[in-house]
């Protein structure tokens, strides 16, 4: 193992907030001299936090897809839609590009995040020898695309406030909206609490 080229191997740690380097053990309470935040060589309890948030995300992903995300009422007749049902309805009304957009943002991106973060955690836990550069890129993609899943939630909030004419036409948000919003927020926190340096730490070369 030659890994002496990292800051940690040289007895240094980088401030998570402002990037300033500090010597490990140089000050009794490790506090950054520039920005005053607590210093750690790695994000504290990164693995456990990410795992906990990820498992909660998986659990809520089920009701998010099973329950109706919104109910569209036209002339008193209500029609509940699940996430998938809403996409199918869009395809049936010949709005394929929008259907693809919603499919990517509401189904593929959350799945990619949940599975991708699981892979990253497995890699760190079982010390898989991987192309760390590629896996860091996977982490970056997960961290970047996360926020775009909020698309469905924002769309519902706009529909709910616009289509609000009592019995004539009304859109009501369903219970899956809460679950889905929670999945998005939890996976965003999970991506944020994962420290990509752990991937590099477990590599032997």
């Amino acid at each position, binding site marked *: 193992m030659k890994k002496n*080229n*990292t*800051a940690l191997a040289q007895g*240094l*740690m*980088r401030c998570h*907030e*402002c*990037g300033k*380097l*500090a*010597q490990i053990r140089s000050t009794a309470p490790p506090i950054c001299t*520039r*920005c*005053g*935040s607590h210093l750690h060589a790695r994000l504290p309890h990164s693995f456990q936090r990410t795992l906990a948030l990820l498992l909660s995300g998986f659990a809520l992903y089920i009701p998010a897809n099973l329950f109706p995300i919104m109910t569209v009422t036209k002339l008193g007749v209500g029609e509940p839609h699940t996430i998938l049902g809403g996409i199918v309805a*869009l395809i049936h*009304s010949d*709005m394929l590009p*929008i259907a693809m*957009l*919603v499919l990517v*943002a509401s189904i593929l991106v959350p799945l990619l995040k949940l599975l991708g973060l699981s892979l990253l955690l497995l890699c760190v836990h079982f010390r898989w020898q991987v192309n*760390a*550069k590629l896996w*860091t890129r996977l*982490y*970056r993609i997960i961290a970047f695309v*996360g*926020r775009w899943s*909020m*698309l*469905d*939630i*924002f*769309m*519902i*909030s*706009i*529909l*709910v*406030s*616009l*289509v*609000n*004419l009592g019995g*004539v*036409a009304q859109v*009501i*948000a369903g219970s899956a*909206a*809460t679950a889905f*919003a*929670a999945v998005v927020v939890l996976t*965003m926190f999970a991506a*944020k609490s994962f420290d*990509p*340096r752990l*991937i*590099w730490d477990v590599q032997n070369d």
Partner: protein
Amino acid sequence: MKISNYLACPECDLLLQRVFPAVNEKAHCPRCHYLLHRPRIQSITRTFALSLAGLFLLLPANLLPIVSIKILENTHDGTLLSGSVTLFNEGMWAVAVVVFLASIFFPMLSIILSLLISGHLYFHRPNRYLSVWLRTLQHIDEWAMLEVYLLGIIVACVKLASMAELKFGLGLTAFVLLLWVALMLASNFDSVLFWQRIEQLNVHEKK
């Protein structure tokens, strides 16, 4: 070994000699290709000007109607705020809070914090809260989701176009301008420079 001559990559922890890229050049980590530093022209001045412009756009973007809908002679205005208010009144308070934070509160806070930080740096005024402000700004950055919201507006309008008459309001113009300001702020922001300046100001004050 002088610590200040070195930096560590935040994503792979590689220890590197500090580099000083020129404006509009990029410094990448040689091992994981993380973008370490990309200096911008007049980052502080531009952040100050842009956040000032953003401040004036906040109220119209939040309060003016973005889209109006007309179904069977009933006209209904939708503003940025009315979405979360309706959700809240329907009992979906958790979703309402998330929408409110992501579409109104965090974009607003990030403009105000940018203004405070760049203003202090522009006029060389030390302030002991500068680092707290910048830390907060860096944390809320990914939770301000104006661009995702714009996509939500587009999808909602496409869905409604077949069943109702839609009219875009002045609020949409203000909203798009605010989004543009937020994107320009993000691309002009040079966090390395900001932290250096804050450190210089604080050291200067202590003397």
